[in-house]
């Protein structure tokens, strides 16, 4: 116990003297929060739109207005030719274009079936899909409002409602996930480099001839990073809640307990990396290499539901997959420990396996 305490204490001193690591620990979570909170906004709004209204009647203007009034489209330019529209789309000045032919009103009045063209830039599928769906909805509403089709009593009154994130704010979805992302990246990185550093600088050589046991060395080295991990998680949760006003519906205690379990997994990964790598550079490269698939396949950005089956199978092996469901479940849905048991047990199992495996491997390496 005394040995573990001595190592943990000296490790704290070392971290506190390592300015570069400290900066990384404080700046990286904040930077990610700013990027995902302000910068990356997957909510599609105010799509720059060119309108080429060749009809120029009351009705065509009403149609353009209904596009403008929806938050999805912003009319940038009233175009005067098709060439202008095409060029704007090519240059990316417009992401969508509404083209109303000259006989729009005429055809409507003759009940002949008028045509309206919508061109959408499909390069990026996310805003394109949103634009497509919302333009359809705008047209439907327009037809009803203008009395072009009768208001019907439908046999099924379909009333979809969005739960948990009714405004579909991407910050609600992304920011809780950041807890997982930042821990997955930072914790193994600092743990691995801290252990490899002892090897690199020859400190291990001196420790080997002292009465210290390998497990004491590991525990002593890990303890400071558990505190640091909790500090990181707290800073993210606080900023997320107070600055970006993401509500936390579930229990804070459960959230921290599960964060602790996830931290153990991350520490284990770092410990494992330290037994493989010979120097700090290798260790951090290894951690990055492991973090990439986690970020891409865990459902942090891309929905796992749309992945091919075999990729989805792989994602079950990634700790972050479970932890993401847990944090989002607790924060957004207010789920409790037992609601999430299906995600909790794989994570607990991984924590035990990873830490036992790494400690054994480390002890063998040291002896």
């Amino acid at each position, binding site marked *: 116990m005394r040995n573990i305490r001595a190592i943990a204490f000296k490790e704290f001193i070392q971290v506190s003297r390592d300015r570069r690591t400290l900066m990384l620990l404080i700046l990286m979570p904040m930077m990610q929060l700013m990027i995902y909170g302000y910068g990356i906004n997957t909510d599609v709004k105010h799509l720059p739109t060119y309108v080429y209204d060749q009809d120029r009647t009351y009705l065509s203007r009403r149609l353009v207005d209904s596009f403008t009034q929806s938050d999805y489209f912003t009319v940038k330019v009233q175009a005067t030719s098709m060439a202008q529209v095409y060029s704007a789309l090519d240059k990316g000045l417009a992401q969508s274009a509404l083209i109303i032919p000259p006989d729009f009103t005429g055809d409507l009045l003759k009940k002949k079936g008028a045509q309206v063209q919508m061109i959408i830039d499909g390069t990026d599928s996310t805003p394109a899909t949103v634009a497509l769906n919302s333009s359809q909805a705008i047209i439907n509403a327009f037809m009803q409002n203008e009395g072009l089709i009768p208001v019907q009593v439908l046999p099924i009154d379909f009333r979809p409602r969005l739960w948990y994130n009714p405004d579909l704010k991407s910050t609600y979805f992304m920011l809780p996930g950041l807890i997982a992302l930042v821990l997955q990246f930072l914790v193994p990185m600092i743990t691995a480099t801290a252990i490899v550093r002892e090897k690199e600088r020859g400190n291990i050589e*001196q420790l080997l001839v002292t009465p210290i046991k390998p497990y004491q060395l590991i525990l002593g080295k890990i303890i400071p990073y558990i505190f640091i991990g909790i500090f990181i998680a707290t800073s993210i949760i606080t900023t997320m809640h107070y600055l970006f006003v993401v509500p936390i519906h579930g229990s804070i205690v459960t959230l921290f307990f599960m964060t602790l379990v996830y931290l153990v997994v991350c520490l284990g990964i770092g410990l494992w990396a330290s037994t493989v790598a010979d120097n700090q550079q290798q260790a951090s490269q290894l951690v990055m290499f492991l973090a990439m698939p986690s970020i891409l396949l865990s459902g942090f950005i891309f929905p796992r539901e749309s992945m091919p089956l075999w990729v989805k199978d792989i994602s079950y092996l990634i700790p972050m997959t479970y932890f993401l469901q847990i944090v989002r479940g607790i924060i957004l849905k207010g789920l409790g420990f037992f609601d999430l048991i299906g995600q909790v047990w794989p994570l607990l199992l991984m924590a035990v396996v990873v830490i036992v495996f790494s400690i054994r491997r480390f002890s063998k390496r040291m002896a």
Partner: protein
Amino acid sequence: MPGIAISADKLTRRFGKFTAVDEISFEIPYGAIFGFLGANGAGKSTTIRMLCGILAPTSGTGKVGGFDVQTQPEEIKTVIGYVSQRFSLYSDLTVTENLLFYGQIYGLEGTALSGRIEEILKMTGLGTFRDRLSGELSGGWKQKLAIANAILHKPKIIFLDEPTAGLDPLSRRSIWELLYQLAEGGTSLFVTTHYMEEAERCNTIAFISDGKILKIGQPAQLKQDLSRQILEVTCHPLMKASRLFSSLEGVRGVTVYGTTLNLNVNDQKAVEERVRAVAGREGVTVTSIKPIPASLEDVFSDLDSGGQADAKH
């Protein structure tokens, strides 16, 4: 045997087919300085690692502080101190922080620990640098810190792996003064070194080559026992003479020392005659030829240049 600090009896370590240490035997009493000499890769570090309890011997026995290296490595670690060749304390901790850390690892606590640290800081002269980051110390002070660290728990046995490698003469001298002080207090020191004048300071020295101990004994005795003699030849031009003399019959080796040549010879009289003869023929001026006492370096190079056969009898 309570008087024996370290003993090895046919201690052997193999790595696969390679025998790093081959049946070495010796005994080191408490209070003695034991110099372990040999080229890089001769088996010095493997021996130290076995004696420190971090590498199990393949065969043979070794005892350190009364504990068996094979069965009691953890007990050994509590009674020894170790100073590695490369500075391996924490360079981002201060002098006192390093001592506090290792003191706790060795089981010291509270006032006993702080008292001991003060004592050591005074003894080594490290007091002035107590709050300095150890990475910012000069090479000599770093080594003193390493020694200070190794004696925190008052071990009676200390292993030092080339403690003065790469240090200036003044630092080396003050480190040796520290080592003598420890030996006087009854501590036995196991020191590896490359420096011959340091080997002279040891009570007993052993030469190891290819895992075998070729020679072991007191420095004075070893020099006296040298079966060859050294002829000091003052002559001109030096390099030409060196080439000529080295091919003479009965000359085992020629070393250039400033303006003289040291010839390692079997038969002093015969070689002297041949030297004068060849010098006269080839136009080399010989000012003087005289036998001189052998140095440890001569002993060492004699062993190294195939003198093993002689060394055995």
